[in-house]
């Protein structure tokens, strides 16, 4: 903890959890899709569904999907800008169960070239967020660090090959976790790193035989001033 955790972030009001956190969830979802969003169905759960409109949570989520920062003064007009940009958005209320965080959202996204992604996460207070699901994979990362997200075959050596490349290019891993749906099937690695991964190194990871896809999400929090 340091002073910038207490003084800041600079944000558009009225609520750090319902507004700033919602922008960051949108930012994360767009980064995971990896391209401009043309269609978004946004499922709101719990407090996001109940008091979200009064907090501008809906505007903030759409602003986040357009890649805007938490302090963008256009956020109150985000719907108009989205229409202009050709982003079609639909809201619905979802029930993610009692165990889900009260500020939980799920995005079903379609990108410019037809790519689809599902992303879910929660705003956990003070503008901080946790992504808990990507394309049906349950996982967990905060976006506080540059994050590498893989989809790979669940076979021995997959983790070593990826971490080998990071080691060679001097990228330090802060946290890492591996998730899979079933043994020997598809798995996902989440690597949170201290340094961002260069394009060429990302391409090297993508070129590994066991890797199906790899995505790189730059740190989305701590935008401050």
């Amino acid at each position, binding site marked *: 903890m340091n002073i910038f955790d207490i003084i800041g972030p600079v944000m558009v009001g009225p609520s750090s959890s319902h507004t700033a956190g919602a922008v960051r969830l949108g930012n994360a979802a767009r980064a995971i899709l990896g391209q401009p969003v043309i269609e978004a169905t946004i499922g709101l759960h719990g407090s996001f569904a109940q008091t979200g409109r*009064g907090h501008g949570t809906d505007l903030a989520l759409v602003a986040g999907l357009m890649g805007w920062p938490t302090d963008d003064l256009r956020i109150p007009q985000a719907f108009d800008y989205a229409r202009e940009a050709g982003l079609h958005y639909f809201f619905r209320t979802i029930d993610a169960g009692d165990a889900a965080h009260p500020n939980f959202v799920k995005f079903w996204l379609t990108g410019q070239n037809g790519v689809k992604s599902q992303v879910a996460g929660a705003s956990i*207070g003070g*503008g901080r967020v946790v992504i808990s699901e990507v394309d049906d994979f349950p996982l967990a990362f905060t976006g506080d660090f540059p994050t590498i997200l893989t989809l790979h075959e669940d076979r021995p050596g997959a983790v070593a090959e990826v971490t080998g490349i990071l080691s060679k290019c001097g990228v330090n891993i802060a946290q890492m976790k591996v998730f899979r749906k079933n043994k020997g099937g598809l798995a996902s690695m989440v690597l949170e790193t201290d340094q961002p991964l260069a394009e060429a190194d990302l391409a090297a990871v993508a070129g590994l035989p066991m890797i199906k896809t790899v995505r790189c999400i730059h740190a989305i929090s701590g935008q401050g001033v």
Partner: protein
Amino acid sequence: MSLAKLSLAEWITAAEAEALPFAEFCLGLQVKQTELSSAEITARMEAMLAVMEESIAAGLKGPRSKGGLVGGDARKLQQYSQSRQKTLMGRFSGKAVAYALAVGEANAAMGRIVAAPTAGSSGVLPGILFALKEEYDLDQIQLAGGLIVAGAIGMVIASRASLAGAAGGCQAECGSAGAMAAGAMVALLGGTAAQVGQAVAITIKNMLGLVCDPVAGLVEVPCVKRNAGAVAQAIIAAEMALAGITSVIPVDEVIDAMESVGRSMHCSLKETAQGGLAVTPTGLELTEKISAR
């Protein structure tokens, strides 16, 4: 996330041992913590101050809030104060309260603010700091020092108690903001490090038990006026501390008391809109109207 407990008393003792003004001592702590230079930290604080100043100006224009429950009160108070030779609060407090209301109203209208420590309590520090700037001729670098003291106090509170209404009620948000502002004010007016601690202790003692009961769950009623209340408490505590009045209960123990009060507070009074003002007949009627829109 559990944090190692910090101690304001320890920092005060250390600052006195090094014979450093408290603002300078706190800046030194942040240099170690962030690995940024003191000039970089001060520059970032000045950038935050610029946003705070803009949010005061935006709020004084009287914007209407998202939920429609607040807006225009900062301007009302400013116009009233400016039209009178003499007011109950006097020039300094009148300005500080008007500016705090302004930021609260700008926040509720989706204006740009600095969460300090939260969006709901974002009016308190700008209110105090910019009233000080105008009435005591302080410059932006001095104000940045005040903000750094405020941030250090906030870190101690975050580590021993909470800054979130959902965890500790409004005492954790407006109470903490008031304590941070009181300490900053004492430091900026030449008080000692020990007096900073007294001001923090007295502010929190006077705001202990304050519940978080927002109508319709929105950061509007009573949040905006509670920012004004916290400004008043901060001024009272700072002036008492500068006069040499001390808190019988030491500052770290007062913060611990806030934590235990927050824990024993019923959850209907911790940002759930299930208790207090939120469930008064008028509060419920407004909730229904807003959700029907």
